[in-house]
């Protein structure tokens, strides 16, 4: 038996704003019968002020899914669209007192429906179904993208695969993607805020040496080594001097006839693309 707060039970027993807004200005949907929960959110929006004047929902799902949807409609009514769009799944859970960890995905569903509704309004009111980017799907059972998993990890400070499952459902069915989820966790939590965001406005040349090394290491790890690994090789960062980067090819790459091509044509190209076009790479 889940330990639901009184507020969850109240919204479940007496859901507010059930139904669909007539002539809705925005319709956002998420989920399906297959997934076991689904939410359709319709909004009436003042075109002048962009204030949400009315919000209604229809939900197929458990008690916490119904309560999350109901409380969401109360939270967004009277807010401007841009303020409403800032609401996170944690805000929804907080408004309800709390949700059991296993049920956090219900609050995520509310956030996703809202995201779809905002998009719907921007597109002239045509209903929008929240969709994950197909090319980056990690969990194929529940259709969860890498982006959605990273977002859940960041927003909610998740540290284990189990928690990711509770929040996004990813890994909750066949479990085959659990290894991949662990890798995403490792990646996100090893550099809580990626250098790209942190130093986006700073030029490579202006970074401190430690920042430079971190930045280079990140790109090497994410974009270079996986490719080299496939051929049984890898690359080590040896030195950084201004815009000049010295590396050593290791493993199968070290004696490879195509080593020069790898160095200039691949590693240098990637670093120029991802960090700074002025970077040059040479053999240590």
């Amino acid at each position, binding site marked *: 038996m889940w330990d639901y707060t009184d507020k969850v*039970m109240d919204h*479940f*027993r007496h*859901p507010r704003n*059930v*139904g669909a807004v007539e002539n809705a200005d925005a319709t956002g*949907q998420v989920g399906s*019968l*297959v997934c*076991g*929960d*689904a*939410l*359709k959110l319709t909004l009436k929006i003042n075109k002048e002020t962009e204030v949400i004047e009315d919000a209604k*929902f*229809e*939900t*197929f*799902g*458990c*008690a*916490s*899914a*119904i309560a999350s949807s109901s409380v969401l409609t109360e939270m967004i009514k009277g807010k401007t669209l841009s303020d409403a769009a800032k609401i996170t799944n944690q805000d929804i859970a907080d408004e309800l007192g709390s949700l059991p960890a*296993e*049920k956090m*995905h219900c609050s995520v569903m509310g956030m996703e429906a809202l995201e779809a509704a905002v998009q719907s309004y921007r597109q002239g009111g045509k209903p929008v179904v929240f969709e994950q980017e197909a090319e980056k799907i990690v969990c194929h*059972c*529940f259709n969860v993208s890498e982006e959605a998993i990273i977002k859940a990890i960041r927003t909610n400070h998740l540290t284990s695969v189990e928690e990711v*499952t509770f929040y996004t*459902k990813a890994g*909750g*069915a066949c479990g085959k993607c659990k290894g991949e989820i662990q890798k995403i966790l490792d990646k996100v939590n090893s550099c809580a805020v990626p250098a790209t965001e942190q130093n986006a406005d700073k030029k490579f040349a202006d970074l401190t040496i430690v920042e430079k090394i971190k930045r280079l290491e990140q790109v090497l790890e994410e974009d270079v080594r996986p490719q080299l690994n496939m051929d049984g090789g890898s690359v080590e960062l040896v030195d950084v001097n201004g815009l000049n980067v010295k590396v050593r090819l290791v493993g199968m790459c070290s004696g490879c006839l195509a080593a020069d091509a790898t160095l200039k044509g691949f590693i240098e190209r990637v670093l120029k693309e991802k960090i700074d076009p002025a970077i040059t790479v040479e053999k240590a």
Partner: protein
Amino acid sequence: MKLIYLDNNATTPVLPEVFEAMQPYFMEKYGNASSMYPLAAESHRAMEKAREQVAGLIGAAHADEIIFTSCATESDNTAIFSAVRSFPQKKHIITSAVEHPAIMHPYQYLETQGYKVDYIGVDAQGRFNMEQYKAALDDNTALVSVMWANSETGTLFPIPEIAALAKAHGALFHTDAVQVIGKMPLDVKSLPIDMLSLSGHKFNAPKGVGALYVKRATRFTGYLMGGHQERTRRGGTENVPYIVALGKAAELAQKRASGSALSKMAALRDRLQEGLLKAIPDSKLNGDPEHRVPNTVNISFGYVEGEAILMHLNEYGICASSGSACTSGSLEPSHVLRAMGVDFKFAHGSVRFSLSESTTQEEVDKVLEVLPGIIENLRKISPFSRFAK
């Protein structure tokens, strides 16, 4: 509010006679059954009496074929690992696709250890696919483990036939019989069953005690390694009070299983089933209506979610369970319903009612009175309700 308890497949209350029988073994007769003084002998005798009672319940030829365990999960794990360790050269094992996790997970583990595993499927009514089973069996099969009755739908499998085929191929046969105990008479001595698991709390003993039946002359390797208890087949100081309770509960269940109370219970179950299917559109029965334990009915209500149904039933004191994803830690609807190919619009909205001998018509009628309204209200807020009839 009076509780209407219709979840007896999940657990049952300890009966007063059972509680009375176990009580002295906590504070007065606390001897370790292995020790050498009269206090200990008393514990030992009580335990051996319980062994007779459990043997009687399942129709075992000898009391020494009963090994006491801590639960049916332990019994199931013990049976599976004993079978594969006893026949190390055989690398194939068979089970059904609708087993309890206590069978499923050890099988999946053995699959990762190089075992070839066949999970025999079921049809839309949950009936065992005998043809698939016959084709899967071969002389390399170490073990066939198939449940007697399904906990979610109550569907009974033809265990005598399944067991006989296993034996014909030289495989060991085990059955998880947790859901048939006290619901029909059993006679394992006349059947080719090598091992059988049962759980005390499903028939009015406390939680935390179970048993494994191992037919004499069956190759056996213990699971919990420890002292010489249970003739070295299960290490660990015997839980005397709970074993006494299991014995008493077994004696009572044996009487019930051959009495007239079962047909009365089946009649009430049928009343509930027919009433719900008639009153609620887009509802369907899950399971085999003909071969089923007498206390269980599982019905799916389309376009609504099971946990939400249960939460509303709670408001009337009605306890039932659901195969919905949301009621378990898992996020998928019941693997049993999915193995039966139940459509997703129905899979999330299943409710299981499991009755006991003390269930009354008044209680059943209360469910019939409130459930149609609950389903209607949930459909009103469901975005899929427009698909419903």
